[in-house]
């Protein structure tokens, strides 16, 4: 076992420690309840925060002693970070978050589909788009018309509803 400190593991340990401290902070801001309660609303949050903090300290110490993740086969086999793939995938998630309210479900989800497929090496964006649009529109209609669950008509859905002679939501 090496005794050299492992930087990634140290960060992981500190993040857990940080979660524990956030837990303490959030537990401390729970309004004090004057309710007749044998075990109040703050007791368990403090216990959980204390546990997480202690574990964070344990992990930090473990990282200072050389860490653990170099023993993880997932890490050992893993290649270097594929910046392009990761970037495209995260962009896909972000695009969905940004577009889903203003542009509607089908457009946002289709954009996500195309970007994620591109992240995993798909060559033909047009083909992916042609898969994604009908698929997401179908899902939208299943939700809205089939289940009666309103998930809001975006630009594309409204356009198609108008073509069908219906008033968009």
């Amino acid at each position: 076992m090496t005794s050299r400190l492992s930087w990634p593991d140290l960060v992981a340990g500190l993040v857990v420690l940080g979660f524990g401290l956030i837990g303490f902070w959030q537990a401390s801001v729970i309004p004090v309840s004057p309710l007749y309660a044998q075990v109040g609303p703050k007791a368990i949050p403090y216990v959980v925060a204390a546990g997480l903090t202690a574990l964070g300290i344990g992990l930090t110490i473990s990282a200072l002693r050389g860490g653990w993740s170099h023993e993880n086969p997932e890490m050992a086999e893993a290649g270097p970070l594929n910046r392009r793939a990761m970037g495209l995938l995260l962009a896909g998630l972000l695009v969905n978050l940004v577009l889903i309210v203003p542009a509607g479900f089908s457009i946002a989800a289709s954009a996500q589909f195309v970007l994620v497929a591109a992240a995993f090496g798909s060559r033909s964006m047009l083909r992916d788009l042609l898969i994604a649009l009908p698929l997401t529109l179908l899902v939208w209609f299943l939700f809205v018309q089939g289940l009666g669950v309103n998930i809001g008509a975006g630009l594309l859905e409204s356009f198609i509803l108008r073509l069908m002679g219906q008033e968009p939501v």
Partner: protein
Amino acid sequence: MNRRTVLAATALAPFAGSLGLRDAAAQARFANMNMFIPAGPGGGWDGLGRAIEQVARHAGLVGNFQFENVGGAGGIVGLPRFVSQRRGRGDALMVSGSIMVGAVLSNRSPVSLANVTPIARMTQEVGVVVVPAQSDIQDIAGLLAAFRANPGGTSVAGGSAGGTDHITLGLILRALGRNAREGSYVAFAGGGPAQAAILGAQVKAGISGYSEFAEQIRAGRMRALATTGATRSDPNIPTLKESGVDVVIANWRGVFGAPGINANQKAALTSFITDLVALPAWREMMETRGWDNAFLAGAEFERFLAADISATESVLKELGLA
């Protein structure tokens, strides 16, 4: 019939509504109505909204309904969305009720029912105080004596803390000269687990909506001690009020209009609901659903709402929840 005459007719409707239905009611008042439900599909508010749709569309009062469900935190996640997106729109309704009154107060929501336009209270359900069948307590006087002597040792099961059941207990304790927070209230996540705890005599008593416990009472597994309405719901069960505890409370549901609508738009919505409630189909709906008609509109509803909010606030303050 042109649009102006519809408006004229609907403006008068609050006064004419009680005189019965006129032929004009058969005309669609709204081509489209946006029904906003600040709760997920399947709950009580959703049920009321969809019942309104069912009856109104059948009677031709409304051409088409659009539903929007935004659930969460007793309705206060959806409320701000309704306020900001429907401002000034005369063709929008939101279902709400006692639960939102409590949620706004206990979560200190910046947007409240004061930000929307009250239209009408439509249904209500009175609460009932029960004990397990095998309990020593035989009547409401017995339970009140137990509350007076040792509220901490008299555990009461009901719905989530700060809800109608909890507020009922708080009001009872206050009426007995005790503090609301002295109660030993055991909150359960749903009707099932709460009922199970009462049936199994895990707790001393229970408080919930009458319909939740009705079958258990009928089958003799729970003993009903008192109901919380102004008058008896069941001829054999006394009310709290006649038992000397001045508590009248019910879980009510109603509809609200968008903020910033003008007097005509408000009158049109009020007359729509007034006429809807007068339909035989609505009475039938209420009967099959087991709802109590609690129709109240206009200034009376606004007075009721203000009184309900202040009573709820006083108990929640004492419980430390507002």
